[in-house]
């Protein structure tokens, strides 16, 4: 295991860190491929996640086509689809086996190769060193490796295309016994085994990144920056990194055990009395996998949303020109969500056969999560209240994040309640919920972050016009796609079903399915605007100023397009990150790096005017 990497690179000599700042000293592959510059690594995460976003999106559109028009050939590209995907060569009709693979791969790719690398990999890398005012991560080479495990992991996952049986097909949760592929001969790699290896690598990449983030935040903050002077983005990423450090290894252990079951025919997760053609030992417990899997994967949903909560907080404060409402409450809410996230995993298993008393315990702990979540929502609304709101593309996406998160959060409370969950379990209601939090929440948050930091990332401004167009089309098509799924779910439409027409009671909803599919196609194609905008602005965008949004946090003290080493001035932090619209000051922002007396008490600033010695007390609210 690569603990060796960690040990070898553990100590970074500070004396060396500044010798090789000029990019021109290094060969091209060290500049663009194997760079240790956190900003280049962030761009690599951006690129790989964008590619996988379209891969995962394509899987989703195949799923939607099959649900709306079961048994009809896929239009346009149907005749080009590989023979293993269709029922007869060239027919373009998706087989049930391929449909199961689509469901699995859509979920896996979107979660492990899009949302987590975007939220943690890209923003973690880009924001943490810049926002705490330092030159790079604490362990830059470890950071490089944390990215370079992702491409091989993706290739291993995708290489299942050439394996007999195709991609993994047991769902992104991969419940055994199905995922143990009992019929498969031992020592033969199938799609599921490749899935397990791939996720093990992704997990390792996450852990290496997370350890690095924690170290960087604790050790490399600029002079004068206390923990409670950090922007909420950094706080959220810091706490997320702790979740990853403690949660991901448990998944890794479970993956290793399931790999043994799959590849070596052990029976960690296989019970007695399974009737199979192969000899196996039994004695294992399928539900044990669910416990181990959800012990990671429930905290993982907070890995996917907490960083975006931080980003949205920063975007909202900047574009409302107001201090974030209840800064410390926000930090404690993030910490509270992170802690509670570790004691609620059983709510995924109400229907798996659970002691009702234990079910009630998990139900209560889950519902309690609504408290810190509501604190966050109310504080965002409090930030907006009577603010001088600028509806930039970043702000629009941040507002969408909050509103969609409210819908997703409320449907979450429904299914947290065990009696309700028994009714809606495994229906499209769950699908609607997860997409309202993961797309409506995380992805809109990711868009907000991209629009907000693109100028610092590439030194160019993104086109606002196209940014808004992308936002509006995405927002409209998103709601048209996913809101009707609540209706499907309450109507009993199963979550994983190849052909809804086999049930009479689902036939009445065929029209709704068609409607959703058309909206989903629109949603997919709307994302081309984002990619087009990113590429077009790279060449034609207006040159970005140092601080285009007139924001307070330290990344805007760096040059417009910072090179290796980030800053061209000494950074000392004089105040908290949210001193917007301070009374008695000409500018409506007060950067953290700007010298000047200001004493922060509970984040209501007491500013001491330098000349007159006149003291003014500013309540933020």
């Amino acid at each position: 295991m690569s603990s060796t990497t960690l040990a070898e690179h553990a100590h970074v000599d500070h004396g060396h860190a500044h010798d090789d700042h000029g990019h021109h000293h290094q060969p091209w592959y060290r500049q663009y491929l194997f760079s240790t510059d956190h900003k280049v690594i962030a761009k690599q995460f951006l690129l790989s996640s964008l590619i996988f976003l379209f891969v995962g999106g394509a899987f989703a559109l195949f799923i939607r086509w099959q649900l709306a028009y079961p048994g009809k050939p896929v239009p346009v590209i149907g005749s080009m689809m590989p023979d293993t995907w269709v029922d007869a060569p060239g027919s373009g009709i998706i087989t049930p086996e391929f449909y199961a693979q689509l469901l699995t791969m859509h979920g896996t790719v979107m979660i492990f190769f899009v949302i987590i690398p975007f939220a943690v990999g890209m923003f973690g890398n880009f924001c943490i060193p810049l926002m705490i005012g330092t030159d790079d991560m604490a362990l830059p080479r470890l950071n490089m490796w944390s990215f370079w495990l992702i491409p091989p992991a993706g290739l291993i996952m995708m290489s299942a295309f050439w394996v007999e049986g195709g991609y993994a097909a047991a769902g992104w949760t991969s419940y055994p016994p199905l995922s143990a592929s009992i019929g498969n001969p031992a020592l033969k790699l199938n799609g599921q085994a490749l899935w397990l290896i791939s996720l093990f690598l992704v997990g390792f990449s996450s852990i290496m990144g997370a350890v690095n983030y924690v170290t960087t935040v604790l050790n490399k903050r600029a002079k004068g920056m206390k923990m409670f002077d950090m922007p909420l983005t950094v706080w959220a990423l810091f706490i997320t990194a702790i979740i990853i450090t403690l949660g991901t290894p448990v998944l890794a252990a479970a993956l290793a055990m399931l790999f043994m079951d799959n590849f070596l025919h052990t029976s960690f997760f296989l019970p007695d009395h399974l009737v199979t053609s192969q000899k196996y030992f039994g004695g294992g417990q399928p539900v044990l996998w669910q416990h181990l899997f959800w012990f990671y994967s429930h905290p993982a949903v907070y890995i996917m949303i907490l960083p975006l909560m931080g980003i949205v907080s920063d975007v909202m404060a900047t574009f409302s020109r107001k201090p974030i409402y209840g800064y410390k409450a926000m930090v404690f809410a993030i910490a509270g969500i992170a802690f509670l996230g570790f004691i609620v995993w059983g709510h995924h298993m109400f229907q798996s056969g659970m002691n009702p008393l234990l079910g009630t315990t998990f139900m209560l702990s889950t519902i309690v999560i609504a408290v810190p979540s509501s604190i966050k929502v109310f504080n965002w609304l409090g930030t907006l209240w009577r603010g001088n709101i600028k509806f930039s593309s970043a702000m629009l996406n941040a507002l969408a994040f909050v509103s969609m998160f409210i819908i997703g959060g409320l449907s979450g409370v429904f299914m947290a309640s065990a009696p309700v969950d028994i009714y809606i379990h495994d229906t499209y209601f769950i699908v609607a919920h997860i997409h309202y939090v993961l797309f409506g929440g995380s992805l809109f948050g990711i868009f907000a972050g991209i629009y907000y930091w693109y100028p610092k990332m590439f030194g160019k401004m993104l086109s606002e016009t196209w940014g808004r167009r992308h936002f509006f089309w995405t927002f409209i098509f998103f709601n048209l796609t996913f809101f009707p799924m609540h209706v499907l779910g309450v109507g009993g439409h199963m979550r994983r079903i190849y052909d809804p027409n086999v049930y009479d009671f689902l036939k009445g909803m065929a029209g709704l399915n068609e409607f959703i599919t058309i909206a989903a196609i629109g949603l997919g194609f709307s994302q081309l605007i984002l990619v087009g905008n990113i590429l077009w602005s790279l060449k034609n965008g207006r040159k970005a100023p140092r601080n285009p949004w007139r924001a307070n946090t330290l990344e805007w003290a760096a040059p417009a397009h910072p090179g290796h080493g980030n800053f061209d001035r000494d950074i000392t932090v004089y105040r908290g990150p949210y001193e917007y619209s301070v009374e008695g000051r000409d500018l409506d922002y007060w950067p953290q790096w700007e010298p000047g007396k200001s004493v922060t008490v509970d984040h209501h600033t007491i500013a001491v005017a330098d000349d007159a010695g006149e003291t003014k007390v500013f309540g933020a609210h």
Partner: protein
Amino acid sequence: MSAGLSLAHEPVSKIPNGKLAMWGFLGSELMFFTGFFGAFIVLRNANYDVFGEGSSHLNVWLALVNTFFLIGSSLTMALCIHNAEHGNRGKQQLFLGLTLLGALGFLVIKSIEYSDKWGHGYFPTQPHHTLFYSFYFIMTGFHALHVIAGMIPMVFMWLRGFSKEGYPHPLKLEVLGLYWHFVDLMWIFIFPALYLMIPYHGAAAAH
């Protein structure tokens, strides 16, 4: 970047970066093995006799020798770090060499045990494999991988120590030491969990 500007400063927490990161990584490693131990507890309680029967075929004495090898190598690692910090290069090399020897001895005995298990057909896909042996191989296997992973930088540091300037980074030695003590500690948990189901050993001897 203008000349002379340096944002680098003393680590805020006063703990060097590498050491802090290693503590974080060890937290992660602890949770990794916790996954196996959690599953072990659940499945052992459900298959008490299968586990006891499996354990009775393990060689406690070899494992005990291995335990002393690992604890001994932890001690020599600590002595090596102590001498590195005081600049005693000769003793640093001696104790690092002894640590490597302990690790190597551990692996040799482990491979003797493994080949014995292979011979008796206890490996996965072999006829006498049981759920207990699934745990035996996954836990000791990952532990052995950790031993090997620790030996790689150790060999590198040891060989570098023979050069003219010696091994110049006592801090890296210390970080490796942290990791090495963790590997030792994990064995201290694995050893009793797998090998010391004494009542069953007695029953096997009576046969």
